[in-house]
């Protein structure tokens, strides 16, 4: 029986994959053709979703984007025999999936299985190198697991880029009867969806990574703090956790090792600030998400006051391949101090959006034009925001910056969680600066004044600037206010809102009604 794949990833569903799948099943039945429908994750080529694949001995053959109305013609072209001349002649025929240049040129390490397997099939996971990392980890001491993570050079993919191994080491060395592993799955940044894709499309890799983390530092309980906007991820994670428990990959005496790790998903409730790790911990404890003062670090006093690893989804999901293939294998990718790969998410006004996992070092321009295919509107790309709502806006003159934490730092920008949002020439950057303040005002936890009051003042000042009132004074006020927020905020919500604001002002002064000379003053 021929296997036909139709993705179950949210983005594919958002473009009608469910109907496509139903139409394929119905059409096959009507024609008396036996097929086996498999719901896989997304390969991450969103302009081709719903991307349908047919499995042949030669490999998987792709067709897309397939809408229900295309299904009859696909059967007419005998697409089940996917490399036949008639199938190749179909306008939606794309060829062997693995040969698509967009995929072939990527270095998929963290996303190695995404789009290939049935997300909740443990058999599939095992057949594609799943749980090899855990197997190796179970033969190592906690300190040696931590050493492997440190040696790999992996840095926090949530955005702050702190070395994961060093964080784990702090937790390992903190004496306590109870420790925790918390996965930060609050993915609030606009332009990012890699966490969601891992959770929906390869949930076992996250479960495996968390289990390894627990075993490394001696934590027996894990929580995934999942944003409430991801109902599909919730279902998939819970199902995968259930199956991992049954198969002895979670719970007590994991694979006969005598080690214990319990895992539970907790739903967030729509507060962006709860992605900040201490706010997240407050929320997990059942409280309002007020940011805590650091120190103490969560690694020392985290959840319920106990030593806690807090890591982003991608950081944790990268651990299995490091333990499987070795620290050096991972560290061999990348540039400078940014080792390994970054799952980059192309978003906004681009022709070809989707998930591109590459070793650090590719330039923004390659991503925007080679992968992104330029703007969706056909108009020139004017500005690009990298790293979410707290990231800087970059003008064309900075598009040759390589994706590397330090290189971005040099131009007063951030890589963050790897989201790239493109805007075409119709974007009004003063409006975007105003929005940055507005967002900060809506999401501020209210604990410190620069953020709570500053963001609201920021909106007011921007309104005056846009209205053209007392220009020089108000621009000066905008800079002073940004300075106060940068230096006086307790967390990065208030502390980084000036990034989008000042970068917009400095790179696009004309949108603020200023000449370049005035802006520089």
């Amino acid at each position, binding site marked *: 029986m021929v296997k036909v794949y139709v993705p179950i990833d949210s*983005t594919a569903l*958002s473009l009608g994959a469910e109907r496509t799948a139903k139409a394929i099943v119905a059409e096959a039945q009507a024609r008396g053709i036996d097929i086996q429908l498999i719901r896989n994750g997304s390969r991450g080529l969103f302009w081709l979703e719903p991307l349908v694949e047919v499995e042949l001995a030669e490999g998987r053959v792709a067709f897309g984007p397939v809408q229900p109305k295309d299904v009859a013609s696909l059967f007419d072209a005998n697409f089940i025999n996917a490399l036949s001349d008639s199938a190749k002649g179909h306008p939606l025929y794309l060829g062997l999936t693995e040969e698509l240049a967009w995929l072939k040129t990527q270095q998929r390490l963290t996303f190695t299985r995404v789009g290939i397997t049935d997300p909740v099939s443990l058999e599939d996971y095992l057949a594609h190198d799943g749980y090899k990392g855990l197997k190796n980890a179970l033969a190592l001491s906690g300190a040696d697991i931590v050493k492997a993570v440190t040696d790999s050079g992996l840095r926090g993919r949530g955005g702050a880029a702190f070395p994961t191994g060093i964080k784990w080491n702090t937790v390992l060395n903190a004496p306590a009867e109870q420790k925790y592993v918390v996965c930060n799955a609050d*993915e609030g940044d606009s332009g990012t*969806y890699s966490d969601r894709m891992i959770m929906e499309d390869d949930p076992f890799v996250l479960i495996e990574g968390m289990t390894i983390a627990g075993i490394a530092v001696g934590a027996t309980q894990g929580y995934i703090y999942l*944003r409430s*906007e991801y109902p599909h991820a919730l279902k998939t994670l819970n199902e995968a956790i259930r199956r991992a428990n049954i198969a002895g990959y979670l719970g007590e005496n994991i694979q006969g090792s005598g080690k214990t790790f319990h895992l539970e998903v907790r739903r967030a409730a*729509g507060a962006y600030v709860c992605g900040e790790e201490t706010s997240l911990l407050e929320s997990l404890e059942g409280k309002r998400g007020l940011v805590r003062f650091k120190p103490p670090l969560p690694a020392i006093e985290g959840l319920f006051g106990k030593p806690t690893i807090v890591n982003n989804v991608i950081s944790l999901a990268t651990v299995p391949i490091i333990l499987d293939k070795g620290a050096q294998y991972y560290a061999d990718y990348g540039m400078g101090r940014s080792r390994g790969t970054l799952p980059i998410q192309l*978003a906004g006004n681009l022709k070809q*959006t989707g998930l591109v996992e590459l070793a650090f070092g590719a330039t923004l321009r390659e991503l925007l034009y080679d992968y992104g295919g330029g703007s969706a509107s056909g108009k020139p790309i004017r500005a690009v925001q990298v790293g979410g709502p707290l990231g800087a806006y970059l003008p064309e003159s900075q598009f040759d910056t390589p994706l590397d934490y330090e290189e971005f730092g040099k131009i007063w920008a951030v890589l963050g969680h790897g989201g790239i949002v493109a805007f075409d020439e119709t974007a009004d950057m003063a409006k975007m600066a105003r929005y940055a303040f507005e967002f900060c005002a809506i999401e501020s936890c209210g604990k410190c004044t620069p953020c709570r009051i500053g963001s609201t003042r920021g909106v007011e000042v921007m309104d005056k600037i846009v209205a053209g009132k007392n220009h020089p004074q108000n621009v000066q006020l905008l800079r002073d206010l940004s300075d106060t927020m940068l230096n006086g905020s307790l967390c990065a919500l208030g502390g980084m809102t000036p990034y989008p604001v000042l970068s917009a002002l400095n790179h696009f002064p004309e949108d603020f009604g200023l000449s370049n000379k005035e802006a520089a003053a």
Partner: protein
Amino acid sequence: MDHLLSQEQQTLIKAHIQAHQHVPGGLMPLLHAIQDDIGYVPEIIYPDISKALALSVAEVHGVVSFYHHFRTHPIGKHVLQICRAESCQAMGSEKLETELKSRLGVDYHQTTQDGKVTLLPVYCLGNCGCSPAVMLNDEVYGRMNSEKVSELIAEVCHG
């Protein structure tokens, strides 16, 4: 205005409270369970929650009001969330939002006159590869415009 709870709702709520009483950090999952079933978190049950979880009523109120997701009043039968974040803005979400507000005759946080649709803003649905995005109940939709959303509403909410 206070909304009276049906016998069935009271039983559900009581069961949820019992189930979460001894869960570490159980307040958030409890509030989710209640809102999933009842559609909102009724203020009249704060005293019951506070007693069972050993919190003050003020603490319960503080938590419910901190999170955008929780609401204390019933809303429309269906919830339409429009993404207002950057990626969707880059693809025209502002136009979508203006048109939908006028088509539905409501602003954010309001419910259409027939009680069918409540409109809410949301800041990223993780569907930024297909902006602008909206969420209708638990389903996300990408590359939207107001015609497509209106068709969706007709199909899901009036179908």
